[in-house]
Structure formats: C-alpha cells, structure tokens
C-alpha cells in the first residue's frame, strides 16, 4: 500500500511538465496555458490602453496635433481591434481554460495539444497586428472595417489585409478553445455533477463557447470575403459589379453583437461566484440564471440590425429588431435581481472582489439602460455614431466585463499563486478604476447629444465640446492609474503576499478543495459531487467521496455522461509536445503570406499539416 506522499509524487510525475524553457514551450497543462492567455490578454489591454490615452490626450483640447489624422484613425481602429479581439475574449476564455477543469473536477481539458496550439496562434496573431502599426500599415478603417472604406481602392496600404488576417488568427484560436471547452464541460465532469449542479461560471463558459463557434465562423467567413476582394479581386462588396457594401455590415454585426455577449456572459458567471462567496450563501435562483444565460446567448443572435438603423433598411423590419433588442435585456434583468436577492439574504463580506461587484452594478446598469434607449429607432438615429454610443459601449464593456474581470483576478489570484493579493492596493485600484471610468464615460453621453460624432481626430473650438473632453481625458488617466495599480498588485503580491491555504475565501466550488496552487493533475483524488456547492459539504475533506480505480501513472481521466455525469469510460490524454508550436508557426506563415499571394494557402498547408499529423499520430498515448 503506497503512502499519500508517494501517490502525490507519482501524480506529479505523470501530469507534470518538464521544467525550464523546454517545459514552457511544450506544456499542455490547462493551468499553464490558461495563465498565458490571461497574461497575454492583459499585455494587449495595456497596449490598447496606451492607444486610448494618446487619443484622449489629443482630444483634451480642440484642434491639437499630437497625431496626424491618419495615425489617429489607425489608433482608434487598433484600439477597438485590440480590446475586442486581443484582450476581452482571450481574457475571458483564458479564465475559462484555467478554471473549468478545476471547477468540474477533472485533470485537464480534452484536447490539450489543440489548446497549446490555440495559444501560439493567438500570440502570433496579436503581434502581427502590431507589426502593421509600426510599419505604417496599422488597421485604418475602424475595428469594424466597413466596406468600401476597407477595400483596396480606399485603403491601398496593407492595413486592412493585416486586420483581416488578424481576425483569422484570433478566430482559429478562439474556436479551438471553444470546441475544447464545450467537450470538456459536457463529458469530463466529476461523477455526480449533473447539469443542475454545474457551477454558474462553467455554464457561462459553455454558452459562450457555443456562441463563439457560430459568431466567429461568421466573422472569419466575412474577413475571407474582404481579404479575397483585396487579394484576388472578388466583388463581394463592390456595388458596381453586383456586390453590396451592406453585405459586410450584415455579416459583421451578425458576429459583432454576439461578440459583446461573448465578453459579457463569462463576466456574469464571475459575478455569480463573487456574489455567492461574499454573501456566504448559495445563489438565489440558480435555475433562472442558467436559463437566462442560455436565453441571452440565443437572443443575442437576433438583434444585429440595431447597429444598422441608419442604413435605410425597410422601416417595418426595423421594428422587429427594436423588439428583440428590448427583449434581450430581460434575461440580464433576471440575473441582476437574483444577485441582489442573494446579497440581501446573505452576510456580505467586505473584501475587494465585492467592491468590484458593486462597481459592476453601478456602471453596467447604466450601460444597459442607455442600451435600451438605443434600441429605439428614432432615438438611435440621433445617437448612433456619436459619443453617446462610445459612452454606452464603454459602460457595458468596462463596467460589465472589465470590473468583474478585475474582481476575478484578485479573487482567484490566491488559487493560482498560493499568495493573497494586497487588500489595500485592491481598494485603491477599485477607487481609481471606478472614479476614472465614470469621469471618462459619463460625460460622453452628453457630448453625443450635443452633436459630437465618433471617430473624429479633433473638433473645432467653437463647438463648445472642449470642457467635457478635458474632463474625460483626466478621467482616462485616472482609469489608467487604476489598471497600473492592479497590475502592480498582481506582480508584487507574488513575492510579498501572505501565503494562502486551499480556501482563503471560504468558497463553495471545487477549485477551492485542492491546494493553492493546484498540483499537476489538479486533485490528489477526483471528487464525487453530491450537491451544487461541493466545497461547502459539511463532511471533512478526508471523508468526502472520491473516484477510485484510475491509475496514477498514466494520463487517464474520466469521461462521464452529458446530462447526469455518470461515468462512461476512461480516456487517456496526450502529454506535453513541441509540435503545437511548429503547427502554429506553419499556420502563421500561411496566413501572413496570404496577404501577398494566394499561394500562402498552399505553403501554409504544407507547413502546418505535418506537425499536426505528428502531434495527432497515434502513439501509446492519446491523439489530440
């Protein structure tokens, strides 16, 4: 009979990754890859933020010339593209990659090598976008790249090509992650974790991943059309040859609106966990929240025309989209009311993550209400493409997604690092972020109603917009300071924070039932789940039921049934590999070449497929 210490050593050996740089390049551990996604996303947040600060500095006074008009226009296009494609979605999915296997009680994701490949493709794609900016080929046509402005005739630089291919990079990456997470969540839950016991963050990631599969396929196809128009002279958007500029808008917004819910829904999952932990009671209305998440995901595909109210589409049709855009708020309202009810009947713990929940409410509710206003066609026709919308979108994205994300980073920090983040720094960060966000974006609603359009590199002094713009710029700097303090907190606390045990917050989900940080293989023994809040099981940890019979010396884990998580089979997963990286590099070479010649498709296939075959070629281990 082996001792517990021996068992831990065997488990660590089986599931571990070699140390050193080779280990970093070959790791397929979801925790390592997830942290990489989050860290890289925060890096792009910083880049996008610097772009924003520069723009706000230019706009602080009328008719300043910090940037040339062309460069300013590239800056706002890069800012939007960075935040939406390179920061927000990868950050949320990265959090999902890190947390989902821990929350559902398994040892890794179902396609670990695909996950590693997805990271490399994302990293290369993001860097590729910025290579454009520094060579005078920054994306010039907005993050939404409307045609015909993004066609060759009006953008003779490589900017729109680089933009289109960056989309392809990020779509490949996020779709690979989404498929991986869907299968992992459906098939690898610990025995007993039936559908109605899945943690709410995992539900949100499941719904989000389905949305990613459909929405990102749409933008990938659209960006192929655009790339083809530019490279081989197809005529998808050329109205002189039977194409249509509005085709782009339909395709883009069919993706674009679900995209914002792809960012928002995981944030609601985070809020559910923060509310539960910091109220010390189970979530009120678990089932309504699950249905609300699913409903939001589905309805979000039916509202896209509200971005196109000014394009002259038939009036009768527009009314349908007003209705759907109003209806989509109802599931979110359900979640809001359930969270308030949970806090009401719980015992609030005044720690920093709870502050971020309160900040989330303050800003997101405002953003949701301005969204309801924008659903109205007559009002939208005034507010569309003005600073009113800039205010609205930053309310819902920063309040609705970034605030929960900041709360999540501080909340799960002890789990990932084994140390507590600084509470004082957290409070300062919250204060700066909160004041900064409100000061920057609240006045924008007024500016929009007073005639200031979007995407303008300057404005005349006689418009009278200077005062509010200056205020907003001050706010932007305060916001940036808040981000800096948070990042500093995350970095410094690694070395100076007090050590955290398994469960410093007293939380209810499975990730808190293992060590901080978790060992390779996540759990000494796979748990059996008996309730919705397994870590609040009154039995002592050593008395809780576990799974037995899985060998520790092979990378084996359990496949269970999708509905009620009864064990179905054992499965062996592949281990670390270097081949994900050359596959990603081959993909990258192909995609970059495609900007210059259609032969990129052939070259990319020749370079990417062999490593793919090697990584998937059956050995004694698993295949993907």
């Amino acid at each position, binding site marked *: 009979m082996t001792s517990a210490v021996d068992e831990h050593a065997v488990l660590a050996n089986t599931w571990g990754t070699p140390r050193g740089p080779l280990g970093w390049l070959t790791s397929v551990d979801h925790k390592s890859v997830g942290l990489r996604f989050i860290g890289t996303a925060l890096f792009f947040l910083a880049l996008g933020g610097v772009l924003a600060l520069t723009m706000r500095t230019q706009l602080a006074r009328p008719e300043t010339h910090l940037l040339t008009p062309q460069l300013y226009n590239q800056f706002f296009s890069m800012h939007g593209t960075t935040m939406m494609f390179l920061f927000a979605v990868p950050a949320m999915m990265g959090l999902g990659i890190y947390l989902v296997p821990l929350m559902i009680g398994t040892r890794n994701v179902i396609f670990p090598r695909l996950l590693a490949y997805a990271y490399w493709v994302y990293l290369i794609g993001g860097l590729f976008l910025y290579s454009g900016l520094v060579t005078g080929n920054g994306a010039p*046509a907005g993050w939404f790249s409307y045609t015909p402005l993004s066609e060759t005739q009006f953008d003779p630089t490589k900017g729109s090509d680089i933009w289109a291919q960056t989309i392809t990079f990020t779509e490949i990456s996020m779709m690979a992650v989404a498929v991986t997470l869907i299968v992992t969540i459906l098939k690898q839950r610990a025995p007993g974790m039936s559908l109605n016991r899945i943690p709410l963050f995992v539900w949100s990631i499941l719904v989000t991943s389905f949305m990613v599969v459909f929405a990102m396929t749409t933008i990938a196809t659209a960006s192929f059309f655009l790339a083809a128009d530019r490279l081989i002279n197809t005529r998808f958007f050329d109205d002189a040859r039977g194409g249509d500029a509005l085709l782009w808008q339909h395709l883009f917004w069919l993706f674009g609106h679900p995209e914002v819910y792809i960012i928002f829904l995981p944030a609601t999952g985070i809020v559910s966990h923060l509310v539960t932990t910091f109220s010390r009671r189970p979530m009120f209305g678990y089932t309504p929240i699950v249905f609300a998440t699913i409903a939001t995901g589905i309805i979000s595909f039916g509202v896209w025309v509200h971005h196109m109210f000014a394009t002259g589409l038939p009036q009768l049709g527009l009314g349908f989209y007003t*209705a759907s855009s109003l209806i989509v708020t109802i599931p979110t309202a359900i979640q809001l009311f359930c969270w308030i009810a949970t806090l*009401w009947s719980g015992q609030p713990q005044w720690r920093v993550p709870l502050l971020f929940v309160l900040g989330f*409410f303050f800003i997101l509710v405002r953003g949701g209400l301005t969204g309801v206003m924008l659903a109205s066609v007559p*009002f939208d026709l005034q507010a569309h493409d003005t600073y009113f919308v800039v205010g609205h979108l930053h309310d819902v994205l920063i309040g609705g997604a970034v605030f929960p994300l900041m709360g999540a980073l501080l909340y799960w920090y002890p789990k990932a690092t084994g140390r507590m983040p600084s509470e004082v720094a957290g409070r300062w960060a919250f204060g700066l972020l909160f004041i900064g966000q409100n000061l920057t974006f609240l006045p924008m609603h007024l500016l929009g109603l007073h005639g200031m359009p979007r995407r303008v590199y300057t404005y005349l002094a006689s418009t009278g917009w200077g005062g509010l713009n200056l205020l907003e710029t001050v706010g932007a700097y305060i916001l940036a300071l808040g981000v800096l303090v948070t990042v500093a907190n995350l970095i410094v606390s690694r070395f100076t924070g007090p050590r955290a045990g398994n469960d410093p917050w007293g939380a209810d989900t499975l990730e808190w039932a293992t060590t901080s940080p978790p060992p390779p293989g996540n759990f000494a023994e796979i748990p059996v789940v008996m309730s919705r809040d397994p870590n609040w099981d009154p039995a002592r940890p050593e008395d809780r039921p576990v799974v037995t019979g899985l060998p520790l010396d092979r990378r084996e884990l359990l496949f269970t049934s999708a509905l009620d998580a009864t064990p179905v089979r054992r499965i062996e997963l592949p281990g670390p590999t270097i081949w994900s990286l050359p596959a990603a590099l081959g993909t990258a070479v192909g995609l970059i070449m495609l900007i210059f010649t259609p032969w990129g498709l052939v070259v990319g296939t020749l370079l990417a497929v062999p490593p793919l075959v090697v990584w998937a070629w059956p050995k004694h281990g698993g295949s993907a």
Partner: protein
Amino acid sequence: MAFLQGAHSVLAPASPQAAAIARLAEFFIGFGAFIWLLVLGFLAYSVLRPRRLGERDEDRRITHRQLVLVSVALGLSTLLLLGLGFVDYSTGKHVETAYSKSADTLHVRLIGHQWWWEVQYESPHNPQLLKTANEIHIPVGRPVLLRLESRDVIHSFWAPNLHGKSDLIPGYTGELTIQADRPGIFRAPCAEYCGAQHAKMALLVIAEPAADFATWYANEISNAVAPADPAATRGRAVFLTAACPFCHTIRGTESAGVVAPDLTHLASRQTLAAGTIPNRRGDLGGWIVDPQGIKPGNQMPPNVLPAKDLEALLDYLVTLR
C-alpha cells in the same frame, strides 16, 4: 464662429421630428435615471441592511418572500419594456408623419464625397441644375426630400436639430425628409467614419423664411457674376489657367471640373472646406495655398501661386456671391 453654439444639438430641436425625438430623449433620461437609482437603491439596501442575530437560520423563509419580490420585479420590468416599445413605436410614427402637408416638397440631391458634400437642387420646372457644395438652404415650414448618394465610401447626413441621421451608401439611393420649423443655421457633421478627414466634413443647413429662400435660390441658380474690375478680371484668368478647372466649375466660365465643389457662388457660403474654416479672404487664401496643412490627406493639392496672382484670384473669388 459663435453661431455654432447650439447649432448641432439633439436637445435643441428646430423641427417637428427632432422635437419628438428630443421629448423621447428627455423621457428616456428621466426614466433611465429613475430605474438606475431604483436598482442601486435595492442593491445598497441589500448589502447595508442591518442583519439580525441568527438570521442565517431563516434562509428558507427569506428565499420564498424574495421569490415573490423578484418575480414582481421581473414582471414590472417586462411591462416597462413593453411600454417603452410602444413609446418607441409611436414616436417613430409621429416622426414619419409630422410634416407640413400643405406645402410642396423641395427636392435636394446630396452626394457624399471624401470629404465634402455635393449639393444639387432638382426642379421639374427648371432644367438648369442648381449646384453648390457644403451648404444647403431650405425654406422654413416646407418639407425637403433629401436624396442621399455616395460617390465613394459610406457617409452619413446628420443635422441633429432637424432629424436623425441617414447614411449615404454607394450603390444605394437613400431618402430623408427634413423640415425646419424656425430659421437658423444648423450644422450637420458627417456621421459615418469615411477616412482621413471624416472629422472635418460638415454641411451647413440654413433654414430661412420663404422669401429669403426664393432670393437665395434665384441667385444661386444663376451663372457667376462677370468680373467688374481689372483685378477681378485678372483673377478669373488666374483661375482658368491654374490647376483649378481640373476639379472645380464656375458656371459661366469655361471651367467644367466635377470632382470638387462647385465654386459659382463660393462667396455666398459661410464656411470653407466643408465647415472647417470661416469663409474670409485670409482663410480662403490659406486654403488655396496649403489645403494639406488645414485638412491633411484631403484631395486638394497645394497651389503655389505668385503673391500677385493669389491676390488677384482672391479679388475675383470674393465677388462670387
């Protein structure tokens, strides 16, 4: 340019349509503020309310009562949204129909270019087209049907004092009917990102009493005044021999360029370069010589002219009322 104050605000309506939308906007702001404060109030109470000792054990009773409260809140929210939908619909209907029925509709064709507005007045009675740029005059109280087209990328016409915006999309002809209730100068900045100088592409909509409008119209449709003195004559010659006629037209001269604004009545306009600079002699001179300095990336090249030629040209251009 003090006239710009308030000359582009959704909340300073000058038409029945904009007035309906402004009322809607004010209602939304009030309603939104109320709901926001209500939700925050409940949230604040939920975390700040005094807790009784032993309250945790009463979880189940609290849950049931809150089930009722949450259901009521949800029901009320749904009803409110339904009500909002109705308000939206009726405002939309009002906006579509609140035009003066008694008067003729004036037809104006607006063609978007990077980065200026081409204007043509159409009339069934007069085969001669009235062509101008970057400024439209409309008679107070009469509906004006704008036909919206684009020669290049997507632009958007937006005069907030008068109506919501409507896009100018290549391959499409859009239609927007506007009507001013009072005289005024209303600024319409381009409202769809259209490239480098999107920020400096504004149209002026000048609403004036019917008689003033008729005067303006009759003047504007006529050819350019012939130069009355030697300086202006010399200026016209400079115009015709420099690069100007490649792009511009002054009706009544041999020039026939169509890719840039029609200059026949340049001096009657309030601004230059699509609402960017005031139309004063010095500004005009600066624009002719160095348009890239004022609007970098726009389509007009610099014109290097000897000082005397420039002065003569300006002498001519300022006569083009």
